[in-house]
Every structure is written in structure tokens, then in C-alpha cells.
């Protein structure tokens, strides 16, 4: 049975800095890697980790190198799609030669485990915060999905094509999503769309498919649904998703960090 861990929005900054002057994102990623490694004996085996974008905060080479260094202790292979805080050219250079990184163009890839396939899509737009899928990416998606012939598939991109009610994030969601909806809704099998960007665990419908937004591994975007709410972060615990085939595609939400337990519910039995 294939299992995939999805992490999102690490926002790594240069050594000695805090993201937004507030968050030690490197520590959060280190804790996340530690949590994943520690959990493997209970939840594994896991086949792959996918990073749903915003690996870095400013897309610099220094930040990517730091990201790679922080990910080194991870006991699993990983691959990534870019987010709006990434720079596709710098990211390509950093992951040059990795099996999933194309030589040029959008960072789109496929991973087929037989019982589950993952399609990673590049929704980033150079210099912009919102997302968009180019014709090339849409063609890649439709061709790749077609080849899956209805087998369970997860499509991952950074920008969600839905509105969450968090205004400051909604203005930079995935735009022009009509064609995406058509392609996904036409799939003759189980399909899950998973995104990042909002740093919150959110589940909704998008056309005929379930759209799941992954929590951030670090800080959260503040839960504030009022119109005109300010653009804020809250230092809630980070988390990640475990996707597995259990009847259908099942996604578990796991918190980063150590918590008291486990305790037997009935130690005397």
C-alpha cells in the first residue's frame, strides 16, 4: 500500500533570520523532519514526501541550500513543486539532476506507484503572488491523467483554486481554474487535489473532486474570516498530511512536535 507524506510552506529564510521577524521556520522544518522520522515506525512504510511549495521565503540560492541541509536528516526521498515564494530558475538549479526536475519549463512531474499516482504541477507565476496553470501544464495534466486510466491519483500544486474566506489569501489563489476543473472532473476514477499556500488544513469540493489544503509545517495564516481582516500569521503548531490508499484515498492530519502520550485508554485491561 502506497503512502505519501505531504508537507507544505516551510518558508526557509537565511541563517540567523526569522521569517517576518517572528518565526524560526528552520526550527519548524527540523521539528517536522524529526516528527516524520520518529513516526515512521507507527505509520510507515511511507514511500515519498512531497513538498507543496514555498520551500523558501525569497527564492534565493542560500535559502534553497539551507532547505536542502535541513531536509538531509529525512529518512525518505522527497520532491517538490514551487509556490509563489519560490524562484523556479533558482529552484531548478538547486535540484538540478534530480529525477523529477525537468531541464526547463514549468516544474511538473509524475510519480506512479501502481496503486496510487501523484502528479505535481507548477502553479507559480514569476514575480506574482497568485497562481496560474500554463497551457503546457494543463496539457501535461490531461495527458498524464489520461494515462492513469482511472487509477487513484493525487494532483498537487501550491495554489488552491478555491476561496477559503481568508481574504488576503483568496486574492492570491489559483486564477483561471475553469479548464482545471473540467480536466479533473472528467477523470474516471478517484482523484484528490491537494494544495498548500494557506497554511491551514482545509477540505472543500472543487467540481467533482475533493480539494484538500495542507497545513503549513511552520506558522499558520491567522484564522480570520472577517472582510478586510489584516494579513497576519499565528504561531499555531505545524502539521503535515499522510495520504494513503485505504479503500479510497485517505488523508490523515499529523501535528509536528512531541506531545504527552501515548497513554493506554484502559491500562488495566
Amino acid at each position, binding site marked *: 500500500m502506497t503512502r505519501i507524506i505531504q508537507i507544505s510552506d516551510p518558508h526557509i529564510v537565511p541563517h540567523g533570520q526569522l521569517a517576518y521577524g517572528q518565526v524560526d521556520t528552520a526550527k519548524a522544518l527540523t521539528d517536522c523532519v524529526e516528527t516524520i522520522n520518529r513516526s515512521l515506525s507507527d505509520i510507515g512504510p511511507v514511500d515519498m514526501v512531497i513538498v507543496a511549495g514555498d520551500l523558501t521565503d525569497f527564492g534565493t540560492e542560500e535559502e534553497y541550500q539551507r532547505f536542502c541541509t535541513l531536509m538531509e536528516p529525512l529518512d525518505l526521498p522527497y520532491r517538490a513543486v514551487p509556490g509563489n515564494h519560490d524562484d523556479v530558475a533558482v529552484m531548478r538549479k538547486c535540484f538540478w539532476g534530480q529525477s523529477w526536475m525537468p*531541464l526547463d519549463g514549468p516544474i511538473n512531474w509524475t510519480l*506512479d506507484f501502481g496503486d496510487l499516482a501523484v502528479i505535481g504541477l507548477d502553479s507559480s507565476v514569476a514575480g506574482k503572488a497568485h497562481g496560474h496553470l*500554463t*497551457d503546457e501544464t494543463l496539457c501535461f495534466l490531461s495527458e498524464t491523467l*489520461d494515462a492513469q486510466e482511472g487509477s487513484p491519483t493525487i494532483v498537487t500544486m501550491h495554489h488552491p483554486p478555491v476561496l477559503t474566506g481568508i481574504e488576503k489569501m483568496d486574492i492570491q489563489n489559483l486564477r483561471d481554474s475553469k479548464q482545471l476543473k473540467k480536466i479533473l472532473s472528467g477523470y474516471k476514477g478517484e482523484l484528490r487535489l491537494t494544495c498548500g499556500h494557506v497554511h491551514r488544513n482545509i477540505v472543500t469540493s472543487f467540481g467533482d473532486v475533493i480539494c484538500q489544503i495542507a497545513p503549513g509545517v511552520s506558522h499558520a495564516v491567522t484564522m480570520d474570516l472577517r472582510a478586510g481582516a489584516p494579513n497576519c500569521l499565528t504561531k499555531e503548531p505545524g502539521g503535515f498530511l499522510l495520504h494513503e490508499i485505504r479503500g479510497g484515498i485517505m488523508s490523515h492530519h499529523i501535528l509536528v512536535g512531541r506531545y504527552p502520550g501515548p497513554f493506554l485508554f484502559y491500562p488495566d485491561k
Partner: protein
Amino acid sequence: MTLRLTHTAKTYPDGTKALLPTELSVDKGEIVSLLGPSGCGKTTLLRIIAGLETPDSGSNIWFDDDNVTALPVERRQVGMVFQSYALFPNMSVRANIGYGLKMQKLPKSEIDARVTEVLDMCQLQPFSGREVTALSGGQRQRVALARAIAPRPRLLLLDEPLSALDASLRETLRDELAILLREFDITALFVTHDQDEAMAIADRVAVMSHGRVVQSGTPEDLYRNPTSSFVAGFVGNAMSLRGRKDGTTLHLKGGTLSLPADGVGQTVFVRAEDIRIVESGPLRGKVETVTFLGTHYRIGISGITSDTLASIHLGQDAPKVGDMINVSIMAETLMLLPEEAGAA
């Protein structure tokens, strides 16, 4: 396969008419270029044919006798080639070409046979085992094309495939692309904003402007017989001669010219190669610029009409900036085209 579009249009919800009702057909094995400036509707047309855009009702797209208008993109069996080749660096040429076929879960023997076939066609056989990072730009383009045709698409669509390349490589790859597309013998539609590219690659060019095909013909036909000021200007940079028309006489700032026909209500165009610098001629102007281009000089001449005119000069030496020169233009080289409201 023959591609045929009837009454195909696209109106956006805000009322923008991206494509006006268009008729277009591309014969089996024909290579047609959609040429026009950005916003002319060429990309919308390509997206409609690919299945990435839903056209207005009443539009019909035919692949031979199949009406594909309602078919989603993945059912149209269309091969697409984009600016980026999106090749995978750690895979061999063979594996890159076979990637799509492998995803389609074709039997290994079938994949091998098809990959070998396109490797031969693209003269990539000697490189089949190499990693794509070891290839030149031209070889990479061939791998990308080979990958696009390996699944045997009914139609090949190319979306500005050369526009990301630097100028020197672009010219080489353009000529190579023209040869390969003919080798494939596939019906192909090629979108570009670059007239040289369109002329070099296509059997036929459809020039688009403001959401419609304004003229379609062979590159020679478009160059020699444009039917509108737009096509005259866009294809081959014809220059307008602005002046007062009196029957078959054109009075310019720098002299008087005979027209091949009555010029009233027409705009008069001339091409740079038809402007001759002569000892004595009917027009007189001043040399503004002299550019040596190896095979010829390009001379900018002011004072003949309101804009500076360019002349292609083949002589061994050229006049100097500031010289007053005489110019002649043969009447039969002038193109008279209907005046267009708002045309420059």
C-alpha cells in the same frame, strides 16, 4: 488528417471577442502558421483546437470526419510542442522519448518499436543512450519533437516553440524544424508572432489581427499580394508613402511618382528593396542613417514622405549621412491597398 474549423468564435463572459467567427482548414500534411501580434487571437484559436478553451456555441471543429468540438483535450490525440522542452535530465534520450508511451502503459515491445522509429526520423539514433544534458540545443529540440510525435498524434500544435531561444540558435533551429515537420508528414499548426519564422516554416500563413484571419496564403503570396495595409506592414514591413493623390499621380514632399492605377481612396505601399538610389530620379531626400549589413546597406532617407524610408542598397559603397540623394521607385512595385480607418 484534415483540420477544419467552421464558424469558430470565442467570446469571454465580459463580452471581449477574442476570436470572431473563423473558417480555417489545414490539409493533410500541411504546415500552417498562425501569425499575428499579441492579442490578435492566434493563441485563443490554438487553445480551441487543442481543447483547452471552449468556443462559442455554433463553432465546429473537425478532425477529418470527426466533430471534436465537445471532446476534452485528452481525447483529441493532439501533440503539443511548447517553448520549453521539459525534458528530464537524468534520463537517456530514449527514455525521455518513451516517457509518455510508458505512462500510457503500452507494451514494452511497442514502446521500443515506436521510439526507434522516431529516433530514426529525427536522426537521434547515435544519441539514444545519452543523457539529454549532453545534447546541444538543436538535439534537445529534436528530442522534444520526437517525444511529441511518438504517441502518433493526429495533429501537431506548436505554440511559439522558438521564442525562448537566442537569435543565433533560433535561426538554425527554425530551419531544422521546417525540415523535420515535413519529414513527419503530419498536419501541423504553428503559432508565432515572428514573420520570419512563419515564412520559413509554413506552407501557408494565416495572418491574424483583432480576432480574425485577415489573409491566408503562401509566404510569397502574402509578401507580393497583400490585400490589406495591415498585412503589407506586418509581413515584410512595407512602408506607406503618404502624399496627395491625383488620379495616377502621387505628390510627395520629395517629388512626384506615377502610380500603376488610380490611387484615390488607396494607401500606397513600397518595400525597402524597391527604393533605388540613382544618379537622377523623380524623388529627392536626405540620408539619415547608413547601416552596413554585410550583403547590403540599409539606408534611412528623410524628406520624401513624412516618415523616414528605408532602402536596401546593394552597391559596393554607400552615400554618407547628410548627403542629398535621388531616388526612383518603379510604378509596378507599388502596392495600392484600401485605406483603413485608424491604420498607421
